[in-house]
């Protein structure tokens, strides 16, 4: 590079752009960039011209018109008179919800299966191997449909719960498993419940603070404080105490059978469950392999050294192996999270109202605004994917090997 910044003065000829190695690569890059720009311009221009000739125009005005259709799972206020923009928002929130739930669940499945696959127990490790190979080698769309079909075909319809001798009964009078979804009790937030929730959040912070303190004490003095039972205690005791102190502000709304469906309680629709479960178990298989690779990347000598110092195997895993393995695990984990988010667009297969189903499905179809809708969709998925990798990169930087 330094040779380019310092060319022999006064002797530049045009042919040197090709013949002189100092300039050649720059020349070719400039030509390639020009061709790229021209072809993008050509394609864009072609599109605009064809649209104009067909009497079509790009306009986002339709977003302000009433959508006219209903959606079965809405996290925000929505009726069929709401706008297409609101329908898109409902879809976006549903996408984010399923992506979040599936990322958490897939991580749990993946870490468990990855660690167990390295277990010394022959049966356990082989079972995990079978799980990984079966799930990651069958397309996720098929898993989604299989799980959904099993749910709708095997579980009883709500009408089976009716009558004096019903074919199906609720679990503990609080949980109903039907082919349309699972109904669970929902909390009712009475006055004063905010205090209870804040107490709960504070105890979560407390748990983390205590664990950090315990680690610090361990490193500083070598004294080992118990962490498991104090954490469990912190998790439950203050919140339950506060609940009774405030006069039991949080009560439960049990689902009851009324009319055609259960009402009350919280409904986890069959599409949500099928999609959630399928995405988690499918991606979990990939994460399991990442975890296994990460653990195996930590040299055996490390565990042996830790063992020689007298550490128990659980501690070797959590204090020595995992912290180093995370450096290997996290980068591919990011792409698995991105995969989950993008694969969630298969939701329409089971009628889950994600953004591809609302904005990219019904809205696109009813308004015929294909280009506009698809551009918006691309923008959304791009934004969300970049955000996820941004956040995960920050985390990656925090666990990566600190040199110097």
């Amino acid at each position: 590079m330094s040779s380019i910044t310092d060319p022999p003065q006064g002797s530049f000829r045009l042919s040197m752009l090709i013949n002189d190695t100092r300039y050649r690569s720059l020349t070719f890059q400039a030509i390639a960039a020009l061709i790229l720009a021209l072809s993008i311009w050509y394609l864009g221009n072609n599109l605009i011209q064809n649209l104009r000739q067909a009497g079509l125009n790009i306009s986002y005005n339709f977003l302000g018109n009433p959508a006219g259709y209903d959606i079965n799972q809405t996290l925000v206020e929505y009726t069929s008179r709401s706008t297409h923009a609101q329908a898109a928002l409902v879809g976006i929130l549903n996408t984010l919800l399923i992506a979040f739930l599936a990322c958490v669940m897939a991580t749990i499945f993946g870490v468990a299966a990855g660690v167990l696959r390295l277990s010394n127990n022959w049966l356990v490790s082989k079972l995990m191997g079978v799980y990984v190979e079966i799930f990651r080698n069958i397309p996720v769309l098929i898993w989604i449909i299989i799980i959904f079909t099993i749910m709708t075909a095997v579980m009883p319809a709500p009408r089976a719960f009716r009558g004096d001798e019903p074919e199906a009964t609720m679990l503990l009078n609080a949980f109903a498993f039907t082919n349309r979804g699972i109904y669970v009790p929902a909390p009712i937030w009475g006055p004063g419940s905010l205090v209870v929730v804040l107490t709960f959040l504070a105890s979560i912070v407390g748990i983390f603070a205590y664990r950090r303190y315990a680690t610090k004490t361990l490193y500083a003095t070598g004294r080992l404080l118990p962490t498991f039972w104090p954490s469990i205690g912190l998790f439950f005791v203050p919140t339950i105490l506060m609940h009774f102190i405030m006069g039991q502000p949080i009560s439960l709304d049990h689902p009851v059978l009324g009319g055609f469906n259960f009402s009350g309680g919280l409904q986890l629709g069959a599409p949500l469950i099928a999609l959630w479960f399928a995405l988690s178990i499918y991606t979990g298989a990939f994460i399991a392999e990442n975890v296994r690779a990460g653990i195996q990347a930590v040299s055996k000598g490390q565990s042996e050294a830790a063992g020689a110092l007298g550490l128990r195997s659980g501690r070797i895993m959590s204090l020595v192996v995992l912290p180093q393995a995370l450096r290997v695990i996290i980068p591919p984990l990011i792409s698995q999270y991105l995969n989950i988010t993008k694969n969630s667009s298969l939701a329409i297969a089971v009628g889950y109202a994600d953004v591809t189903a609302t904005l990219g499905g019904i809205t696109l179809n009813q308004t015929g605004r294909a280009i506009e809708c698809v551009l918006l969709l691309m923008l959304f998925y791009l934004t969300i994917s970049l955000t996820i990798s941004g956040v995960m990169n920050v985390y990656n930087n925090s666990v990566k090997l600190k040199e110097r």
Partner: protein
Amino acid sequence: MKKTAFYGALTVAGFAASMASAATLDDVKERGVLNCGVSTGLVGFASPNANGVWEGFDVGVCRAVAAAVLGDAEAVEFVPLTTKTRFTALSAGEVDMLSRNTTWTFSRDVDLKLEFTGINYYDGQGFMVPRDLGVSSAKELDGATVCIQTGTTTELNLADYFRSNNISYEPVPIETNAEAQQQYLAGACDVYTTDASALAATRASFEAPGDHIVLPEIVSKEPLGPLVRHGDSDWGDVVRWTLNALIAAEELGVTSANIEELAAAPTGNPEVNRLLGTEGELGAMLGLDANWAVMAISAGGNYAELFEKNIGENTPIGLARGLNAQWTDGGLLYSPPFR
């Protein structure tokens, strides 16, 4: 899916320009096959039989057009399209025409740049429920879970109907009729709603049709008809007048049985003569042979024959003519004159 939709959009944009100006009629003649978009499978309207040959009322319209243009009712390539993909496929030039239970609406005609060439079935939206649910009116459906096909007028009508009657429901959006049927039978939804004709056809394909009832309410107008792309009026005329020929043939008493005899020489009825090309130049005006209507009617019979054979009262589907009777019999079928 994102990708296909985008490429779809690009192709729409890319093709629409060339297609709008191009003469579909010439393309079809040159290709020697008519590409006709039909539903993915709705017994009586469009479905492949045991030998894989497409049959049905909507299929009959495709065959009539192919016969009129190419002289061969078999020269049709049937393209099964879902409610979601049908308009993109038509706009992109993948099919020359659509004949698949499609409702003529303002926005499809004007905004989606499609051209409806007539109405071959006057329909309305109905509801089907299992008999043992004990429901006798759509107004009793408060809180029900309803299966609907997405991208249809059905889903919009449904929202409007329940809203104006102030009752709630939970929609289950589904892509094809076959899937909807499966979900409905598994009890994943209480109600299946779509065009009443399609409900009758779906019900007829159940193992125990008697266990299901169609509720009396018809909540919308669904004029179903064949359609083509905007901007190619010549081709639109061919499809429009082929359908009219089938309807007029019934009115004039021309059937597949007597057509050979009637077309052999001019008859005493000038309109029959003009229709069958033994008098006048109607075929040439469309850019077709003089015997175009003879071919179209011979393909599967006139409107009444198509109706009775595929969806009429003597078929499992058992639809009465009702609104779809000739205007002379108190129905709405009314072909403009052939002159």
